[in-house]
């Protein structure tokens, strides 16, 4: 196996892009990443996407994006793992370069969601859950997370407002990210007043439906060593799975796949959670942020919310999360999210995170979750100097 480096990053602003479709969004992100990497050709393209068929009537994104980007002939496929599609595409790109099957690989995550109506998007997102045993009973993605949040509050004695720090931190960080969908400060009062979607989850606990694309260029780390630029190495790449339906889990409040994926990643990188400088977690809902912090070893069971209440998740805290806004403020174009997370970790490790810069960040972790925890993909990036 070869060491793999991320040599280029690119992203579009997340939001409602009336004037751009899947092709244009992908192109904008991948051209930015290739410019940043200084490459004009790639050996393979992996496109992470969840809902292009359902929401835009277009599948076959590997060939589509390759053709549109002037990469005709290149190896290209779409990768799908629900909301974990972006990191799944990165995982395949990593495998190809690490295994020596390709040298320069382009990974793009893209999603176009705002052409659909709210109920259509809600129904489409629910396809990540168990169609026959969850969705058929009227469960939405929000409702599934609401079931977890209610039980969490019951078992550990938290109040609804105890979850506010996750939202407040994400939006405070999003204010300084030009690519973020939202640039608005959220106060505890605004959180308390937010409209209920599926109680106890309100609008500000939830990440928004959005359009966006992000891209990275991978190459053997040896190619860039000694170039004078910081080498951002993929020190770990680990996937784990769990039951698709929440009701089939032994203990729904433990994200077993998140724990498995994180601990496999720690093993590969030969580090522990205490060495991680920032954690781009999958805060599609506040409860997911809490459960991810616990699964990845940053908090004990039932103490993920406590960590946030103690101020430890801000850029100055012990384990900064959602440092560029996370899924809530940057936005959650589902199949693109996993790549956005990694792009943001690279920004942090390069020291290009501006006002949200985590001081001396050297080790960054990104964890992308498909469904309500059924596919979890963790990447650890380390800056080698």
């Amino acid at each position, binding site marked *: 196996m070869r060491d793999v480096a991320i040599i280029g990053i690119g992203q579009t602003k997340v939001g409602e892009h009336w004037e751009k479709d899947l092709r244009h969004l992908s192109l904008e992100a991948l051209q930015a990443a290739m410019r940043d990497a200084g490459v004009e050709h790639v050996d393979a393209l992996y496109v992470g996407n969840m809902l292009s068929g359902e929401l835009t009537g277009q599948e076959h994104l590997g060939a589509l994006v390759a053709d549109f980007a002037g990469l005709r002939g290149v190896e290209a496929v779409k990768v799908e793992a629900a909301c974990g599609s972006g990191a799944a595409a990165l995982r395949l790109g990593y495998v190809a370069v690490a295994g020596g099957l390709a040298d320069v690989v382009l990974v793009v995550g893209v999603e176009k969601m705002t052409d659909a109506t709210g109920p259509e998007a809600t*129904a489409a997102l629910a396809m990540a859950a168990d169609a026959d045993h969850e969705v058929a*009973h009227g469960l*939405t993605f929000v409702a599934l997370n609401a*079931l977890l949040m209610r039980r969490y509050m019951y078992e550990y004695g938290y109040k609804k407002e105890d979850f506010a720090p996750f939202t407040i931190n994400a939006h405070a960080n999003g204010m300084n990210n030009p690519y973020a969908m939202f640039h608005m400060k959220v106060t505890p009062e605004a959180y308390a007043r937010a409209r209920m979607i*599926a109680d106890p*989850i309100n609008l500000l606990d939830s990440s928004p439906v959005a359009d966006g694309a992000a891209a990275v260029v991978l190459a053997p780390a040896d190619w860039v060593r000694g170039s004078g630029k910081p080498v951002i190495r993929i020190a770990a790449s680990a996937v784990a799975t769990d039951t698709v339906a929440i009701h*089939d889990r032994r203990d*729904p409040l433990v994200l077993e796949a998140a724990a498995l994926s994180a601990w496999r990643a720690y093993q590969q990188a030969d580090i522990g959670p205490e060495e991680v400088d920032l954690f781009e977690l999958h805060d599609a809902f506040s409860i997911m942020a809490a459960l991810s912090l616990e699964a990845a070893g940053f908090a004990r069971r039932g103490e993920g919310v406590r960590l946030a209440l103690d101020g430890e998740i801000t850029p100055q805290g012990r384990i900064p999360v959602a440092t560029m806004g996370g899924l809530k403020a940057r936005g959650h174009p589902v199949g693109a999210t996993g790549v956005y997370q990694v792009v943001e970790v690279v920004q942090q490790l390069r020291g290009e995170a501006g006002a949200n810069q985590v001081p001396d960040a050297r080790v960054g972790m990104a964890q992308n979750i498909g469904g309500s925890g059924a596919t979890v993909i963790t990447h650890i990036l380390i800056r080698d100097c």
Partner: protein
Amino acid sequence: MSLPSKNWRLRNQRYRLVGEICEKCGAAIFPPRDVCPECEAPAQTPYVFSGRGEVYSYSTVYHPPAGFEKYAPYTVALVRLEEGPMLTAQLTDVAPEEVHIGMPVEMVTRQIQTDGDEGVIAYGYKFRPRMG
């Protein structure tokens, strides 16, 4: 999507709560999955659940997906069956503010989904409060 063929395939579990029992370790399994989640042995022996259980968690849905608009708001729950497994279902015959974790419930058969005004109606299990 409420396809007639799918409704027919799922009829035993949806109408009568028929799951499976593992002949090897005795685990009761619902929804049926043909491989025991406890010991990984093949498990295809039908087993009819009592339909009694209690609420593990619940939520009231105000923003329904396409196909469920006319039911909203409705309350959904994770129900722990007395035989052990948990399932996901809607609660019925109860006001949202009366639901609590640990509430005893029992299964009833109700309409669970429709495809538009002219479409197929799917029936299946819901749960209502149980006395005593």
